[in-house]
Structure formats: C-alpha cells, structure tokens
C-alpha cells in the first residue's frame, strides 16, 4: 500500500513538472523593465501575445518569454526577482551596480552580435567595458543632451521677445509671461533622494559649470572630485532659484508632488527645464486643448557656461544574468532586435506582427511605419527593447509621435550647446561608491532636503557654511574620497 501511494505521488510530481516544462517552452526570459511597458502594466492580450511569440520565433529563431513589470518601482521588482529562485535571463540595469550577477558578453558578441555591434556607436561600448576588458552589457543609450530648457513661442510673440539666450533674458521672459497671464509658471524637477542628476546637469550647471553623472566636479585647487554643494557658484544658483520662487515664477509643486502631465494639460507651463520627452511626448497629446501653444528649445548661457550638460551614455545596459541557461539564444535575439540592415526585429518587438499590427510606409534605415493603436491590436510591445539611438531608425507615421522621433535624431544628440562633463567617457562604479560611503543615503537626503529649503527660503542661504559643516558630519568626505579614487584609477588606466 505504501509503495502504491509513493508511486502515485511520484508520478504526479513528475507529470506536473514535465507538463509545466512543456507548457512553458521558452528559450529565455526577459524582464522588460526598459520603460516600454511603463504605461501598459497589464501586458498584452494572452491570445495575441501567443501569436506574436510564435511570430518572433519564426523570424528570430528563438522564443523569449516576457515578465511584465507590475510593481510601481521596477528596480525593486528586479531586485526581488534576482533574489528569487527563477531570476530573469535578460533585463535592463546599470551593469556596474549588478556586476556580480552578470555574464561578460565578449565571446557571445563575437559569435552572434555582428549586426548589433555595427548598430551601436563605438563610444557607447566604452561604458560597457570594465577594468578587465569585459563587456558587461549592451548599451541602452548614447551621449545626449536631454536636460534642455524650453520656452513658448506663442508667449514670445505676444511679448515681442526673442528666444532667450542668457539667464537674464530667461528671467525677463518669465516676467513678461506672467504679465500676460499670472498663471503662467515654470516647471522643473527638484533634487530628490539620489535622483538629482537632472537639476544638477540642468539649471544648476549655468551657475556652477559642468557636473558629472554623480553631480560632481574636479576642484582645481586640490584635484579631488567633489559634489555639487562644494562647487563655486552654487550659492548664486540657490539665490537665483529662491528669487524666482519669491517672484512666483516656479510652480510650488516643483518641490513636492509634481504631476508634469497634468500641469502641461493646463496650458500654463510657460517654461520647462528638464527631461526633454515631457515636451516631445506630452505636449503633442495635449496641445489641441491649448490653441497656439508651441514650445521651442532655448539653450541658455549662464555665468559658468551652458545651462545644459551632456549626459554620458553611462552604464545603463541590457544585461544577461550569469545564471542564464541559454545565453546564445539571448544574443541571437538581440542581434535580430537591433539589426543594422532592417528594423524588422525592432518593429516586431514594439508593434507586433507585420501586416496585422503594423506595416511599412517606407522601408530603409530609417524606416517609416504605420502603426495601429495598442488598444486595437491588444499587443503593448512586450518584446520591444528600446535602444537609443537605434530606435530613431523606426519612425512611426503618426503626428503624435513625429515630434518625438524627429527630436531623437536632431535636438537630443545636439551636444554643442551643452557642457561636456568630466566623466563623459568614464563609467562610474556606483555600487563601489556606495560601499565606500556607508552614509551616502544620508548625504543625498541632506542635499535634497536643504536645497529645497534654500529654494523656498525656508532656510537662509546665509547659513550655507553651516549646511556644508552638516554635510561633513554626515560623511561627505567619504564620498569625495570614493569618487576621487575612482577617477584617479580611471586616469591611470
């Protein structure tokens, strides 16, 4: 009897195991945290997805399975997945942070990556290579100038002004805008936790000079890498921000919860200084409600140079888990996705099946494609892996997206009206910096909290030296040591 029960139990387990394997016959898994599914967290219709999966298999020769992000914070979800028993094989991450869990790609690229090696700019590969020469990921982006200032042509016309070129002219523009309509205000992104690259490499740079990806600069007096609170000119920047706050130019929500999409919808955003796609993606969707509203790029020159800073392509990459069982299939897939001869793979990943979900308006590189609404096709782009500047090769024949795609190939890569940072061709190991600066989180919080207080006047800028002393107490010197050591090592190499 015991034997019989044991046999039945074992058979059940084995059959369940084999059934699950058969039902789930994929070559590898993708955690698509690329941002492609940011607004489509529910994923595609399962039946449509099954058809697209079969189509991808037919064209690429491999079968990926996509894990759709369903947590608000995809980084947290990625960390949980990686710590679990079935970690994803392919995902997007800063390779320097996740290095211990990744597979070097040199051999795989040599064997299966000919097309994508040609597609991606050579400079971007530099950021993927560690000090031992291992290529740790496929670049997600290239050097760009995303932190631009935008003003409105319709307001300029009404005020009889030209596009502002200096900080003073920008201030005059805001004054004129508020004379026309007191509700016209300026939007930007505030310092927040460790997400402070944007204000540092945007508005602040006009007063402090170029900042790196760690919002740091090289102090010529001692050659050490220091964070932006120590930059010459930083107090001028804070006074300027406070002056605009007192004059009522900034949206007060800039410093708390700022819903950019909703604010653009009010038609009152007279100036935007920050991530470019707020203008290139959101504005075309809302401008029909705002007759005459038209944003123009306004490169501004401050006392220390351009207001914008070039953003290095950095270490953001598509990476392969070292536990992946079928890395060759993954590389085969990526080589198909970003092929230098055809956008077939990319267009399929983003839009679905050619003929059913999209069609060519014109072939070539770039190609123009006709797409259908995702609500209609019920495929939301699960297999799509955006890659800049490659994605500029597929231009949708859609007026809502035309502005964005045109900008990808023009303004975003225009680097001659932005600062060139010290680390343009250097990949920081941020994980190591965090390890060597145990209180980095405290320092980040202190800067974000106090800069906001300086903007709003809650804390007087006369107390700036006290603030620096507080930063020292919080461990800022460890941070300086960690960044300086890496920069010196990079130069030595």
């Amino acid at each position: 009897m015991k034997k019989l029960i044991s046999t039945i139990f074992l058979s059940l387990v084995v059959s369940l195991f084999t059934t699950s394997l058969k039902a789930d016959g994929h070559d590898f898994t993708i955690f698509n945290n690329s941002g492609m599914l940011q607004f489509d967290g529910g994923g595609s219709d399962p039946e449509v997805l099954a058809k697209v999966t079969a189509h991808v298999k037919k064209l690429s020769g491999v079968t990926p399975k996509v894990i759709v992000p369903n947590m608000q914070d995809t980084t947290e979800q990625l960390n949980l997945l990686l710590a679990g028993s079935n970690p994803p094989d392919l995902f997007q991450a800063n390779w320097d942070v996740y290095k211990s869990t990744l597979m070097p790609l040199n051999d795989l690229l040599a064997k299966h990556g000919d097309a994508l090696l040609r597609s991606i700019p050579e400079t971007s590969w530099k950021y993927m290579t560690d000090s031992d020469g291992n290529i740790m990921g496929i670049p997600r982006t290239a050097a760009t100038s995303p932190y631009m200032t935008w003003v409105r042509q319709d307001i300029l016309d009404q005020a009889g002004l030209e596009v502002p070129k200096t900080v003073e002219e920008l201030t005059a523009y805001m004054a004129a805008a508020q004379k026309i309509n007191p509700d016209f205000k300026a939007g930007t992104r505030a310092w927040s936790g460790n997400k402070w690259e944007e204000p540092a490499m945007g508005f602040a740079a006009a007063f402090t000079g170029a900042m790196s990806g760690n919002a740091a600069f090289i102090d010529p007096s001692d050659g050490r890498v220091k964070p932006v609170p120590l930059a010459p000119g930083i107090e001028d920047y804070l006074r300027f921000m406070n002056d605009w706050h007192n004059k009522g130019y900034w949206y007060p929500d800039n410093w708390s919860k700022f819903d950019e999409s909703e604010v653009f919808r009010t038609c009152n955003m007279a100036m935007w200084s920050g991530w470019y796609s707020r203008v290139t993606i959101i504005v075309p969707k809302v401008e029909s409600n705002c007759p005459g509203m038209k944003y123009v790029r306004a490169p501004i020159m401050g006392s220390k140079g351009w207001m914008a800073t070039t953003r290095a392509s950095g270490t953001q990459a598509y990476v392969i888990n070292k536990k992946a069982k079928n890395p060759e299939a993954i590389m085969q897939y990526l080589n198909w996705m970003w092929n230098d001869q055809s956008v077939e793979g990319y267009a399929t990943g983003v839009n679905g099946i050619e003929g059913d979900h999209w069609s060519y308006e014109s072939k070539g590189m770039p190609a123009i494609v006709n797409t259908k609404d995702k609500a209609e096709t019920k495929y939301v782009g699960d297999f799509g892996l955006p890659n800049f500047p490659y994605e500029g090769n597929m231009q949708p024949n859609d007026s809502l997206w035309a502005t964005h795609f045109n900008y990808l190939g023009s303004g975003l890569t225009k680097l001659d009206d932005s600062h060139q940072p010290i680390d343009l061709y250097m990949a920081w190991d941020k994980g190591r910096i965090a390890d060597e600066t145990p209180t980095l989180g405290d320092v980040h919080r202190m800067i974000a909290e106090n800069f906001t207080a300086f903007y709003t006047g809650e804390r007087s800028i006369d107390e700036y030296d006290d603030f620096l002393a507080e930063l020292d107490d919080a461990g800022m010197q460890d941070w300086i040591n960690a960044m300086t050591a890496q920069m010196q090592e990079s130069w030595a190499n």
Partner: protein
Amino acid sequence: MKKIWKYRFYYYLALPGLIYFAIFHYVPMGGALIAFKDISPFDGLRGFFDAPWVGFKHFERFTSSVYFLDVIENTLIISGLKILFGFPAPIILALLLNEVLRMSLKRIMQTISYLPHFISWVVTAGMITALLATSGGLLTETINDFTGSNINFLGNKDYFVGILVTSHVWKTIGWSSIIYLAAMSSIDPSLYESARIDGANRLQMAWHITLPSIMFVIVIMFLLEIGNLLEAGFEQILLLYSPSVYKVADIIDTFVYREGLLALKYSFAAAVGLFKAVIAFVLLYTANRLANRLGQTGLW
C-alpha cells in the same frame, strides 16, 4: 495524548493554519540571520551560508545615521497621531451606526464608510494630489479663490502630517468599525430593555451598556495597534512625501526603502526590520501586562 486523539478532528481543522504559519511566518524568521551578515541579494541561498558575519555592523550603521532620531521620532509621532485619531473614530462610528434604527439607512451608511478601504493607496494618493496640487487642485484652487493664497499643502511641513492622519482615518474608519458592530450585535437586548424601563436615555445606554460590553474587543484591538506602533504607513507616505517634508515624514520604513532596498543593502534592511520587530514585541508585551493588571482581557 489521549485528549489529542479524542479531539483529533479539531486538530485536523487547525492543521492547515498551523502549517501556513510555520511555513510563512516561522521558517522565514531564520532569514533574520542576514542582519548579521553582509549578503549579496543575488547569491541566493549560497550567499546566506557563505556571506561573512559582520556582527552588529548594520545596526550600528542605522543608529549612527544623522537621521536615526528623526526617523524614529517621525514614526512614533505619525503612528501615535494615527492611533489617537484613528483608533477611537471607528468605535464612535460603530456607536452611531448602532443607534440608527432604519436598517436600509444603516446599510447605506455602512457601505459608504467601507468603500475607501477598497481603494488602494496608489489611487488614494492620486486623489489627494489632485485635490491639493497648487495648479488645478480642487481644494487649493477653491481656497485660492476665497483667500488669494496658494498653499502648497503637500510641500508644507505644517500640513503634511495632518494630511496623512486625515486620509488614514478616512480610509480605515468604516472597515475598522465592522468588528465593533459585530461585538455590539452580541450584547443581550434585555440589558437595554431593563435600562429603558429604569429611564435611561440612549446616550446613557451607549455609555453604560454598549461601551462596557465591547470593552474586551477595544482592549484587544488597542493592543494590536500598539504592536504596530512602528508601522506608520509606508505606502501612504512613500506616495505622498518629497524632500520638502522629509523632516516630518521620513519614517523608518521609507528610510529603509531608500537605504536598504533601492541600494541593494538587504542585510541593512533586515537589521532595521529586526530592530523594529524587537521594539514592537517589547511594546506589545508591556501593553499586554498593563491591560492584565488593569483587569482587562489581554492577548495572553
């Protein structure tokens, strides 16, 4: 043993629950060990065994943070205010609902009060932002129309904690009142009849009969609240706070989220979690002893 065998069917009924608690609540306690190690989250189970022991390093890191006292204070203040206003609110609501004689009206009121419980914090935070945004916020614009002042409620330390407590009470008042209504339904009606004959009015009946009869539930619920004193509402705060209000809003959980989970320092996050659990146990134990000494029903 004989007793166990005699009542074996009751034990069978309890078995799934016991297994659930063993697997999901007791076995994971072993994971607390990583608070004393330097673990990489990507090394899986191997890392759990192989990672080096670091003693109290992560606890020291937490207590040596310049914000340690701030986050403890904020956690206790926010949680304390939520208990101060949020704990009696459902009891009062239940007492009021208990006095409603028309069943249809009572049910409508109950349903309306339960609804916020089913709205996630993500949606609630969106609603709060839509109400309080300085540009286009319904409440802010209305106040602006009448007073001419454009208040940044979500970026102002003076208002932020009030917003947290108010939205917490709004969201929980109805659902939390269910248990008190259930306790009230078991009160012997003859007590009310006797009181009525003796000339007691409804307020006196509520005070002298209803409240004492549900006191055991109130005490147990209060003890459970005390055990959760260090849970000040992570999701709610994370979705609403910003650097402008860190000073009053950064609690232990948001601190750990930034320092531990986003920075991949899982050992640090585990250390703070263990710290919280120990404090919560001490608080619960003390409150339970106190309840027993005062002659009330405790948890044990």
